């Protein structure tokens, strides 16, 4: 396997203009992600994690530095990078089947038309949506909507999966079922994944590497390798290393939260 990184953040700085002058959101982030890795970004809320994903998705351009995909700078959004948003973004005017078909029917999609029906069937089955093919999203639960968003992203065969707190709005049970489903589909199709989360358990359970970022402006605090391989199941929760890792990452994240609240006190002075 090639060791060339598929994704490279090279000393990336992002500043947003505000009424009080430019606000620095990311401050010199450098990170390489290789083929097949599952990397989680964890840090205090509002620190700029989402900006990292938006850079990669092509919604935000770096103020300084570069974001490279296979050595080329990211110019804009594209179907090679599937994006899963916390608020799902399933199209309410389309049925489940039409939602999954949306990306397939765009001009940018190169898969032959004859294969579309099979692709749609495959992902409806995989995501447990086959019985709801002709339903509109208003009839679906939160977990089902997120599965539909996942199926729609998968249908165009992205090489990368970018997820911004994808399970944040789900209840604990559904969330854990979605995590298992995600591991399962990743086992079936090799993808390179970037997950933004604020759940330490979720990060450990799913990732091969965890990147802890600081309070705003976000810098990389630490990168931690997760010692569990794939396929992975519920049993890793009982592994003593899981508890150790959780304690270690929690401590780091708590420190950043503390730093953030100190910042806020300073700002309010």
């Amino acid at each position, binding site marked *: 396997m090639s060791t060339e990184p598929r994704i490279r953040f090279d000393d990336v700085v992002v500043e947003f203009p505000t009424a009080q002058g430019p606000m620095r959101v990311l401050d010199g982030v450098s990170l390489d992600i290789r083929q097949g890795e599952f990397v989680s970004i964890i840090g205090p809320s509002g620190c700029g994690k989402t900006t990292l994903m938006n850079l990669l*998705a092509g919604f935000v351009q770096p103020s300084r530095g570069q974001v490279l995909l296979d050595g080329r700078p990211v110019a804009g*959004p594209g179907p090679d990078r599937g994006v899963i948003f916390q*608020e799902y973004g399933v199209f309410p005017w389309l049925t489940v089947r039409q939602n999954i078909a949306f990306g397939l029917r765009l001009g940018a999609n190169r898969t032959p038309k004859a294969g579309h029906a099979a692709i749609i069937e495959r992902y409806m089955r995989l995501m447990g949506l086959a019985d709801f093919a002709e339903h509109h999203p208003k009839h679906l639960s939160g977990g089902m909507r997120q599965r539909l968003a996942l199926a729609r992203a998968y249908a165009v065969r992205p090489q990368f999966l970018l997820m911004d707190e994808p399970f944040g709005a789900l209840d604990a049970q559904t969330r854990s079922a979605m995590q298992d489903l995600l591991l399962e589909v990743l086992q079936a199709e090799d993808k390179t994944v970037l997950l933004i989360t604020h759940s330490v358990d979720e990060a450990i359970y799913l990732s091969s590497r965890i990147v802890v970022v600081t309070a705003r402006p976000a810098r990389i605090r630490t990168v931690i390798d997760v010692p569990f391989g794939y396929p992975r199941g519920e049993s890793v929760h009982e592994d003593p290393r899981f508890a150790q890792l959780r304690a270690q990452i929690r401590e780091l994240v708590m420190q950043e939260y503390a730093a953030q609240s100190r910042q806020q006190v300073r700002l309010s002075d």
Partner: protein
Amino acid sequence: MPRSSAPRRIALILLPWLVLVALWYGLRYSGLVNPALVPAPHEVATRFVALMGDRLPMDILMSTQRVFIGVALGTLVAVPVGFCLGWYRGVRTFIDPVINFFRALPPIALIPLVIVYFGIGEVAKTVILFYASFFAGVIVMYEGIAQISPIYVRVARTLGATDLEIFARVIVPLTVPHILTAVRVALGVAWATLVASELIAAQQGLGALIQNASAFFQLDIIYVGIICIGFIALAMDLLLRAATRRLVAWQDRLA
């Protein structure tokens, strides 16, 4: 709520109307009002039947046609204008006060000016109804468009959609419900303005019917005219709601 049987439903729909007619009779024969000033429901019904064999069908046709043309032209312009105002936030900041200024002007207040500029023919009435429908429609349209969540556009982009594909496959479907609401609101306002626009020396139309009748103190004809306006507006609204239910069944909230 339990699903009620068909005869029960019909009874429930008719009940408020029967109560209204009963109240009308009650008032008429209570001795509280001068009977010469309040015709009884059956007198109005008789007059209605008589007028149906005379000028009423033409009046209804003319009024409906004016409302239809006014609303059609008004929404035809309101939809693109409202869309642009809703979509481009920058434009809205400057245009919003102007739109609200014109919307706040009652169309009736413009009648003298309209007569000066457009005379007293069909054009003048169309202008008034156009004005009323346009400003009612444009507000509904742009407020609806401004509420469209940008997430759908972002999702479409990540799936590889071009600007043209985003417009045709994301923005248009999201716009349809707002167009239907704009038409509904415009229809309501246009009917309300109709009588006023037919005051401009109209020979035909429900407004003219009422106007002529008032000159001869024919109260029963005035009642016929008013009730016709009400029922035609109700019928149009029901039709539009049925169309909305069919076209935008995907919406969480049905009209």
